[in-house]
């Protein structure tokens, strides 16, 4: 079974530039998450999608971050304009709707962003 796919793996941009990350979840997983992991910290949820609808985006900095999952499968996370403090790993994850299994989420390899 293919895992969560993410691209690009690494990106270096200057502050005030824009960047976009792409994610394709595990086949059949209805729920998709974007997490931000700053060095030395645990992952922090940015946004959760259920199919193509947003479930939780309370921690997404909406003045500069946006995300979409138009067809309920793959997703894009965009940052515009980027700030130095956005340097982090952006992790995409997915899970099935089987909450009885405790909603195990599976992560991609991450997109590593450096803002200079």
């Amino acid at each position, binding site marked *: 079974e293919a895992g*969560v796919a*993410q691209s690009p793996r690494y990106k270096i941009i200057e502050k005030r530039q824009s960047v976009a990350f792409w994610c394709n979840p595990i086949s059949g997983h209805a729920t998709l*998450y974007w997490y931000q992991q700053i060095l*030395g*910290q*645990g*992952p*922090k*949820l940015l946004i*959760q999608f259920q199919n193509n609808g947003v479930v*939780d985006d309370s921690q997404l900095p909406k003045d500069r971050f946006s995300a979409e999952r138009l067809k309920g499968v793959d997703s894009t996370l965009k940052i515009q304009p980027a700030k130095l403090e956005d340097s982090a790993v952006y*992790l995409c*994850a997915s899970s099935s709707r089987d*909450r009885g*299994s*405790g*909603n*195990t*989420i*599976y*992560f*991609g*390899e*991450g997109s*590593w962003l450096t803002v200079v």
Partner: protein
Amino acid sequence: AQSVAQPEDQVNVAEGNPLTVKCTYSVSGNPYLFWYVQYPNRGLQFLLKYITGDNLVKGSYGFEAEFNKSQTSFHLKKPSALVSDSALYFCAVSSGGSYIPTFGRGTSLIVHP
């Protein structure tokens, strides 16, 4: 609100010795508990989880974790550490109220040859 504490930033252990990585949690209702491992420049990999049933949960790579409800803990253990176990380990908790897991800050495990 749910939360996870990993009290140790770093755990050092000699190869072949048993290891323990500590985790305590706070949640309303029955907890769902998870351990993930992160190798350098990689994403998080699922190791094991506790949902219900036997308090001792076995997972990947010889790891196991023990759920202790009275102490609200879910410590990760392995009887004999390998150098290749060196990585970042994250504990996470969710519940029936919020199925979105909350992660701890992570513990760096260093296994010395």
